[in-house]
């Protein structure tokens, strides 16, 4: 493990400190927590708060999306480990303006349970709390009898849509309806070239040979659905887009938002080449994205790979929400 860190145990507090001090205009840290709240308090007045969070290692997610028009607060857990309820609760309390707080949770048992406990705590304080559990990763088969699908990069579209709506004065119930309406239309799938190394673990989550890739890997190095030899970008696009098409039933009469997301160590060069192939493949289906973003937004420390998110904009308003201006570090 070769990393620019000090003691692996201190990575999270040190990184949160570095981030908050580098960007005081966006973030402030709640004392004795790794919860980060919008500095621009005025922008939250009279509005429903949006709180997200999860394990660290996905930077710039989540704190990079805290700011006017997007998240009110982000809570950072240990690396790849859900934050604890007391910290989530502190964030909820800090952003509540009497209009309630909406939680964006990714579908991992840990996150779901910790956020639920925080919700219980907040409700004891008479703060209205609602939440959505994002499960956009179609690599895992959904089933009522399992944990279900994972929440991955598509979560950022959820943040963006809810943040815009909240900034425009949507109520807690409206946000809840919006989140539930949007949820099934966001799908993501990834391909990995190498795994992440959690600092305290010291070795990669899995090993791939020099010429091997794995489809469907999660953002914590969760195993995917197939390993094979590396292929040209065009073929990777065909595989990932094929899965998304099966799931979303892409249709040229619809409008789509697309996120090409680097997993951490993948240079923009590769992301842009992939985007080129993707746009060609979509054009063959008669589709030109109405909204697109390319970059390393939902990372998995230094994992190499790309995830592809497609968001079917079945309601025209959702595109406006995506285009709504924000003031954040990373959007």
């Amino acid at each position: 493990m070769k990393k620019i860190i000090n003691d692996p145990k201190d990575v999270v507090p040190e990184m949160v400190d570095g981030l908050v001090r580098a960007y005081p205009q966006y973030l402030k840290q709640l004392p004795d927590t790794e919860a980060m709240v919008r500095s621009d308090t005025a922008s939250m007045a009279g509005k429903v708060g949006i709180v997200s969070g999860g394990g660290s290692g996905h930077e710039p997610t989540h704190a990079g999306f805290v700011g006017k028009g997007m998240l009110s607060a982000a809570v950072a857990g240990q690396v790849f480990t859900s934050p604890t309820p007391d910290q989530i609760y502190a964030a909820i309390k800090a952003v509540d303006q009497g209009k309630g707080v909406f939680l964006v949770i990714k579908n991992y048992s840990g996150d779901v349970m910790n956020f639920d406990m925080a919700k219980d705590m907040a409700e004891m304080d008479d703060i209205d709390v609602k939440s959505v559990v994002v499960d956009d990763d179609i690599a895992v088969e959904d089933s009522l009898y399992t944990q279900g699908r994972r929440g991955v990069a598509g979560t950022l579209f959820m943040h963006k849509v809810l943040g815009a709506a909240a900034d425009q004065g949507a109520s807690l119930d409206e946000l809840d309806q919006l989140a539930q309406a949007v949820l099934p239309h966001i799908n993501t799938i990834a391909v990995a070239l190498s795994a992440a190394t959690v600092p305290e673990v010291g070795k990669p989550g899995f090993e791939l040979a020099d010429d091997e890739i794995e489809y469907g890997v999660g953002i914590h190095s969760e195993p995917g659905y197939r390993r094979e030899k590396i292929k040209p970008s065009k073929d990777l696009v065909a595989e990932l887009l094929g899965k998304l098409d099966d799931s979303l039933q892409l249709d040229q009469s619809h409008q789509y938002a697309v996120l090409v997301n680097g997993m951490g160590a993948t240079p923009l060069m590769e992301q842009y080449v992939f985007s080129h192939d993707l746009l060609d493949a979509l054009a063959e289906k008669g589709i030109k994205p109405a909204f697109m973003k390319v970059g390393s937004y939902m990372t998995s420390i230094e994992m190499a790979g790309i995830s592809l998110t497609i968001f079917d904009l079945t309601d025209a308003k959702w595109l406006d929400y995506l285009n709504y201006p924000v003031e954040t570090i990373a959007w």
Partner: protein
Amino acid sequence: MLTAQNTITWLDKFGDAIEKNKAYLSDLDTPIGDGDHGNNMARGLTAVKAALADKDDADLTTVFKTIAMALISKVGGASGPLYGTAFLEMAKASKAGTTDLPTLLAAALAGIEKRGGAEAGDKTMIDVWTPVLAAVQAGNLTQAVIDDAVESTKPMIAKKGRASYLGERSVGHLDPGAVSSGYLFTALLEVEAN
């Protein structure tokens, strides 16, 4: 019967076992999870030890609650709320007056089930808690019962937690939370033996 004192000793021994097996637990969590279970538990048990340091004269309920809060606020992940809830439920039950081990453990297990929505056979810590509770109720908890319970998770297909993403590929691996729960009950046996 649990007392404040033997509960503190229990958690102390549990903490030692976790510390000793931290790397092993994370290794177990690597092929079917995210490789952090050892670190999560170690962080939590260090916090438990620190929190219990000045609780020598506390009552059982306070001890349980102290343990619960330390676990809830320091472990994170899936295991934090689950172990935390277990001790919180024991705190509640003890407050209601009981010091009886089977009653306390039953309350803890019910809390874990409610919090995580898993049941026996889902390849989680519940697959250790369930047979252990039965043995405690029958008055015949032994190391062999614990070991068998832990071992029983190996052939199971995970239905909850991160390992469930693997489906059938989770077969053949011990569940890390089951192994850490095994340490919890081994520590309990040692305390009971004294």
